[in-house]
């Protein structure tokens, strides 16, 4: 935060940080009007695909984004990373296009499309000038339905994935997160990194990719959102043309998540990476699901703890008062399962112990004493006030529509949202926080240079 622009290679991490902290994705809404049942079109195609659409004629562009309910939950331990490998390989060749032909079609018109494998789902996102929407949807459909996984492309991609894992092994932030997940989600699918390990990526064959796509990819549970300079009915019609005749009778339902076992005690794990200058810390526990009745109270509490203003109470103590870290904030994942609720910070290895102590103290205070009425009122005002900003761009609106569907919030959710936020009390936050962030049962993960072992 407060750093450099993104014009020079290697400096984009700063903007990433801004994004993580602020949660303000870009945005356009109709003036003074949040999306609601009267201006969101929601249609279910006969094959099960849900289409959400909303118009914005302020720019001649369009965003297409969505997901399929297929992710690393389907991966075996031996071939962990398979779902992500498949997602990355979809655009490497299809019945109609080879790799270069596919990207040539997109890039020639300044359009983009990408797939991303997650734990529960595989997401996709693309944008184009509206005159090229047919092309974008056509390539989306080709990639999902008729990928060919050419042998040479699979091997090239494997090398790229392995290189990404080698880079991950050198990234203190990523390695701290990985260690954190292993502690907090021991024995649970969330304890596994969805991009796998070098040996599991090596174990995957081309035939695994082919089979995975044939079995798990299909229209059931797929959701797609189209936002931009097009009438909603026309958008739905175009999606139907591209994907309306897709069927896959083999498509299974998503596996249930096992119950997460609570940690017996606070557990610390350190990962030493030679040649590093800063240590990254992640401290926390499993949080509520997005659909849980606890979620909104937890989210407002999280804002007080490590988001509001300059990274909330955590930022105030660790950065502003002690000057120990450039970044120190808290985050609540939500999601379909018990995603993490954690505090992270990057510190000088010499300051590791006082930083952990300071953060732990703040967690203890957070679960023992209610936040003040003023703190709650501040975060409530922020949640309500920032909503229009999060809907500034087509991408922001498209994501907002997907969340309505994914978490079954109802099309009127953004209109009801201010009242829901205002209804949360300081006692609800305390009660919720104390159930999830028990100071005696936290995961503490650190990655950094050898000095952290001291």
């Amino acid at each position, binding site marked *: 935060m407060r750093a450099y622009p993104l014009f020079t290679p290697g400096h984009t991490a700063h903007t990433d940080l801004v994004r993580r902290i602020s949660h303000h994705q870009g945005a356009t809404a109709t003036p003074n009007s949040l999306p609601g049942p009267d201006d969101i079109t929601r249609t279910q195609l006969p094959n099960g695909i849900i289409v959400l659409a909303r118009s914005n004629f302020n720019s001649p562009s369009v965003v297409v984004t969505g997901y399929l309910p297929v992710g690393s939950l389907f991966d075996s331990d031996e071939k962990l990373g398979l779902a992500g490998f498949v997602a990355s390989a979809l655009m490497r060749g299809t019945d109609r296009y080879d790799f270069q032909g596919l990207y040539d079609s997109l890039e020639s018109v300044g359009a983009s499309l990408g797939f991303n494998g997650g734990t529960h789902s595989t997401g996709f996102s693309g944008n184009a000038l509206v005159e090229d929407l047919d092309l974008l949807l056509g390539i989306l459909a080709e990639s999902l339905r008729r990928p060919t996984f050419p042998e040479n492309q699979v091997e090239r991609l494997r090398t790229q994935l392995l290189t990404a894992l*080698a880079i991950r092994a050198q990234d203190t932030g990523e390695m701290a997160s990985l260690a954190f997940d292993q502690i907090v989600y021991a024995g649970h699918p969330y304890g596994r990194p969805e991009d796998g390990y070098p040996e599991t990526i090596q174990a995957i064959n081309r035939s695994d990719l082919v089979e995975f796509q044939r079995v798990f990819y299909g229209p059931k549970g797929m959701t797609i959102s189209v936002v931009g300079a097009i009438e909603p009915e026309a958008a739905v019609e175009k999606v139907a043309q591209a994907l309306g005749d897709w069927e896959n009778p083999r498509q299974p339902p998503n596996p249930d998540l096992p119950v997460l076992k609570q940690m017996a005690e606070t557990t610390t794990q350190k990962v030493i990476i030679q040649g590093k200058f800063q240590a990254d810390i992640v401290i926390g526990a499993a949080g509520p699901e997005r659909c849980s009745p606890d979620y909104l109270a937890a989210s407002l509490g999280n804002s007080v703890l490590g988001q509001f203003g300059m990274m909330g109470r955590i930022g105030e103590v660790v950065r502003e008062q002690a000057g120990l870290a450039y970044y120190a904030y808290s985050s609540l994942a939500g999601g379909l399962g018990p995603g993490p609720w954690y505090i992270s910070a990057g510190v000088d290895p010499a300051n590791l112990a006082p930083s952990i102590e300071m953060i732990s103290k703040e967690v203890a205070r957070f679960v023992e004493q209610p936040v003040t009425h003023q703190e709650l009122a501040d975060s409530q005002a922020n949640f309500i006030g920032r909503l229009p900003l999060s809907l500034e761009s087509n991408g922001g609106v498209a994501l907002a529509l997907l969340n309505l569907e994914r978490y079954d919030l109802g099309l009127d959710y953004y209109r009801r949202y201010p009242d829901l936020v205002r209804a949360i009390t300081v006692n609800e936050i305390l009660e919720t926080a104390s159930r999830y962030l028990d100071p005696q049962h936290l995961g503490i993960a650190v990655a950094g240079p050898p000095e952290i072992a001291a």
Partner: protein
Amino acid sequence: MGNSITKLELSNGLLVFLKEIHTAPLVSNWIWYRVGSRDELPGFTGISHWTEHMQFKGTSQFPPGVLDKAISRDGGYWNAFTFLDWTTYFETMPADKIDLGLHLEADRMTNSLYDPEGINSERTVIISERQGNENEPLFQLGEEVQAAAFRVHSYHHEIIGDLADLKTLQRDDLYQHYRTYYVPNNAVLAVAGDFQTEVISARIREFFEAIPSARMPGRRVRSEPAQTGERRVMVEGSGETTYIQAAYHAPAATHPDFFPYIVMDSLLTGPSNLNMFVRGISNKTSRLYRSLVEGELAVSVSGGVPATIDPYLHSIAITVHPQSTSEQVVSALDQEILRLHDTPPKSEEVARAVKQVRALFAYGSESITNQAFWMGYSEMFATYNWFTGYLEKLEKVTPHDVQRVAQTYLRPQNRVLGIYLPVSERGGSA
């Protein structure tokens, strides 16, 4: 999108750009100062960026912490960036709250506290920020490449500054830097969004016009002499991955060669994104992706040429394939560049680069914050006309222009070649 804007100059020299956009109930307010790391002398590197941090540490009217909360409470967000040539601050707020943004920027143009205790706590914050950067191999490499490329010009050091200076800079150094450069006649205010121009103009005058102008020191320019032979730098560090950064001395943003250069950059590594808050597009059909990544010599390649006042660097960053060597990659890179020297690109390739930029402009125009950014940003190294004429200038670029620019700039004698070599030391769990 429309490009209709209002430009004002207040009596104290503050330039103001206003653009009404009524698509969402938001306003984005940016103030830009013509000061950046180029204005720093040895012993004072990083002072512009540190000053930027101190601008968030309070005034007597808005003590530390008050504004962070006030802006969050209103549902807005704010941030700042320091670059080679400039420093900028912005707030994007619900339209009815933008008064706060104007008020606080006018206030902190003159009234920031620079409290000694705040200076010391920020010293460790910035050192921590630098350590976080140093964890990244590409930062380590980029810092060495930049230093090797500029022996004379002050573009030679990283914006965040050298650790030696971050340890020794004092409160008075920072305060003097602030008082020297944070004056209305050295600033541009750019506001876009849901407002009435007449109303906001009056408010801007109320907040800013009483701030006195000041005599500015001339901007020091020590031109970099032409490089006469290739420079190579090696960085060794942890990990398993080799990286290459090839940096060519490039034209300034206002040089006529800049636009053909943009097209050439697009052909080589894909279109650069002019937007600050909008993602770009992929580069898988670019020439270097095809030769290096599809040729199994690299796993990724990217590039870009920033718009700067003085000639800066066109950088190509490459992640080397684990079964390849940096020599093989550099040889393939040179072959691809030679192809451009020998044969002009097809006119369809140039047209394609223009269409890509047109699409990126459309994506960028969705965001009010981004549109306000464009107005001030272009004024920092050229004028707003530079930006509004951007597409038109690109459309005039011919294949021969691109070839000529390649021949002029993409020569080994004009580049610094940086290589990050991993040294294997195993880590582990403790």
